C-alpha cells in the first residue's frame, strides 16, 4: 500500500493537468439500425467517484467499450485524461485501469501469476507494484491460490488489483458490484472510496444498482435508451425539485388542520405520523415552523424531503416512457 500511495504522491504531471478525466461529446454508437449510444455528452471531473447509472441494456457497457477503444464510435469525440481516443489511445490507456463487464483471468494460474502476466504486458516497471496491489485489495494471503478457486468477489478485487498495476489516474469499472453479496459490495464500495479519497484517483463506475451508486459516488449520470437523461452530483440528483418538506411534531392531526388551506402550502398529506407538504417556495419552511411553534406544537423534525436515487431514476425513466 505504501508503494501505491507514494507513487500517487509523485504522480507524473504529464497527463495530470490536461483537463477532465473523461470528456465525451456527442458520442454515438450504432449497430446497424439500432442506436446503442445516442449523442451522449458528459464530463467526468478528476478526483471523484462518478457513477454511470442505467438499467441493463441502457448502453453503459457499449459506451465504455467505445471510450476504451474496444469498438469504434459511429460519431462524436471522446478523450481520456485529456488525450483524444482512439487517436492517442495507447498513451491514455497507459494511465487507465479498466474492467469491462467482468474481470477475466487464467483460472489455472494463481492470482499472483495472473498479475505477473498483466504486468509483463504493461511493462517491466509495473512488476514491482504486484505485491502492493494485492495487499491493497486484501488478496495478499490468497495470491498463491489458483484463480479457479476464487469467489466472484475475489475476482472482482483481483480485477481492481490488475487495474492498479498501471498506477492509474483513472479507473473505469463496469458493474464492479455484479454478483457480489452485501459484504462483498461493502468491500468494493470502501475500496473505491479509498481510491478516490485517500489516493486522489478518479473512478468511473457503471452500475445498474442505484443504491450502490448513491452510496459510493459523488457525481452521477443517468443513462436510458442510450441517452444521458440527467447528470449532476448525487445531492442534486436526489434533491426534491418540488420543494417538498417533511415535518414531525407532537400532534400531527392538529398540525394538519392548522396548515390545511395555508397559502404557502400547495399540497399537504399525513404519512407515517409525519406531514409531507409541497411549498410554493423553499424559503417558506421557516414560516411553517414559526406557525406550528406559535400554535404550541413541539416540532421534532423539519427537513426537505429527500428521495432516493432509485425514486429519481424510476421517476425519470417513467417520464421518458410516457413521453415516448
Amino acid at each position, binding site marked *: 500500500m505504501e508503494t501505491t500511495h507514494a507513487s500517487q504522491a509523485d504522480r507524473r504531471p504529464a497527463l495530470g493537468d490536461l483537463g477532465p478525466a473523461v470528456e465525451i461529446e456527442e458520442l454515438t454508437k450504432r449497430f446497424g439500425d439500432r442506436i446503442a449510444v445516442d449523442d451522449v455528452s458528459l464530463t467526468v471531473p478528476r478526483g471523484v467517484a462518478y457513477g454511470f447509472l442505467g438499467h441493463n441494456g441502457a448502453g453503459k457497457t457499449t459506451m465504455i467499450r467505445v471510450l476504451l477503444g*474496444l469498438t469504434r464510435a459511429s460519431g462524436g469525440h471522446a478523450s481520456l485524461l485529456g488525450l483524444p481516443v482512439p487517436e492517442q489511445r495507447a498513451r491514455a490507456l*497507459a494511465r487507465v485501469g479498466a474492467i469491462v463487464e467482468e474481470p*477475466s483471468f487464467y483460472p*489455472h494460474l494463481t492470482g499472483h501469476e495472473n498479475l505477473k*502476466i*498483466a504486468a509483463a*504486458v504493461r*511493462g517491466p516497471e509495473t512488476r514491482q507494484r504486484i505485491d502492493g496491489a494485492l495487499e491493497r485489495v486484501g488478496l495478499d494471503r490468497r495470491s498463491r491460490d489458483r484463480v479457479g478457486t476464487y469467489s466472484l468477489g475475489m475476482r472482482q478485487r483481483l480485477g481492481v488489483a490488475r487495474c492498479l498495476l498501471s498506477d492509474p489516474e483513472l479507473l473505469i469499472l463496469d458493474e464492479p458490484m455484479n454478483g457480489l453479496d452485501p459484504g462483498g459490495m461493502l468491500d468494493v464500495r470502501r475500496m473505491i472510496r479509498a481510491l478516490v479519497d485517500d489516493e486522489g484517483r478518479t473512478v468511473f463506475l457503471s452500475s445498474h444498482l442505484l443504491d450502490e451508486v448513491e452510496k459510493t459516488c459523488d457525481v452521477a449520470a443517468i443513462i436510458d435508451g442510450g441517452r444521458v437523461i440527467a447528470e449532476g452530483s448525487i445531492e442534486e440528483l436526489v434533491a426534491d425539485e418540488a420543494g417538498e418538506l417533511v415535518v414531525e411534531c407532537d400532534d400531527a392531526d392538529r398540525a394538519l388542520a392548522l396548515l390545511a388551506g395555508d397559502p404557502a402550502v400547495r399540497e399537504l398529506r399525513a404519512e407515517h405520523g409525519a406531514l409531507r407538504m409541497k411549498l410554493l417556495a423553499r424559503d417558506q419552511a421557516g414560516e411553517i415552523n414559526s406557525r406550528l411553534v406559535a400554535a404550541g406544537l413541539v416540532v421534532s423534525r423539519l427537513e426537505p424531503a429527500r428521495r432516493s436515487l432509485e425514486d429519481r431514476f424510476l421517476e425519470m425513466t417513467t417520464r421518458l416512457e410516457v413521453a415516448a
Partner: protein
Amino acid sequence: MKLDLITAKEMIGADLLRLRKKRGMIALALAVMLVPLVIMTGYDVVKHASDPGQYPPAGGLNNYGRLLDLLGVFMGPVAAVLIGAEAGAGDLAAGVFRDNVLTGRSRLALFLSRIPAAVAVTLSLTALAFAIGVAATFGLAGGLATPSLSVILESVAWLALANSVLCVIALGLASLTGSRPGTITALIAWELVLSPLVVQATSLGTLRRGLLDSVLLFLKPGPLTGPPGIPMPVAVAVVVTIGWLLVLPALGAWRMQTRDA
C-alpha cells in the same frame, strides 16, 4: 507505448508461464508422443524377449526410424497443434485478450509474443520425448547398428523444424478462428488423415510439393521408414516451408488486429 526488448522478453515469459502451467495440456501433449513410443518399444521388447532368434532387439536404427516418424510426422505434430492452439486462442477463451488490449499494448505485439513461447514449449516437450526415444534406441540396441551423431543432430534439426512449423500454423489458425477445439480438430484431421492421402495422390504430380508433409518427408534425415518423400529442389522446400510459416500466422495476426475485444 513502445515495445522495447525488455518488455518483449517479459511478454514472451508471460506467455510461456501461462502455457507451461497448463498442466492438463502439457500432460496430454507429452502423452500423445510418449504413450505410442512406450507401447511400440515395449511390444518389441516383449517380442524379442520371448523369441530372440526370430525378433531383433527393440532398439537400433529401426527403432530410431520409427521414433522420427512418430515425433516428426504423426504424434509430434499433434502435440505441436495442441500447444499452438492453446497459445493462439487461450487468452480469448479465458477472456484475458480484452484485458490485455485494455493495457494499450499493440495487438500485433500481443500476437507475436505468443510465437516464441509456444515454440519453446513445443520444442521442450519434443526434446524430452526424443531423448527418451534415443535412450531406448541405444539402450535396447543389443548388437544392432545405432544412428551416428550427425544423423542425430540432423534429426534434432528436422524435428525442431517440423514441430515448430506445425505449432506456428496452429497458433495462426487458432488466432484466426478464435477456437481451440476447431483448430485442433481441423489440423489433426488434415495432418493425420487428409494430408497423407493427398501426398500419395500421384495424379496431383508436382502440386503435391506445396504440401507441408511433402516438404517435411523430403527433408527427413535417414534412415527412412514410412512413406517415401516427393523429390523436389531444396529451394522449393524452403519456399513452401516459409509460405506455410507465414500465411496462417499472418491471417491470425490480421484477425487479432481487427477482432472486437
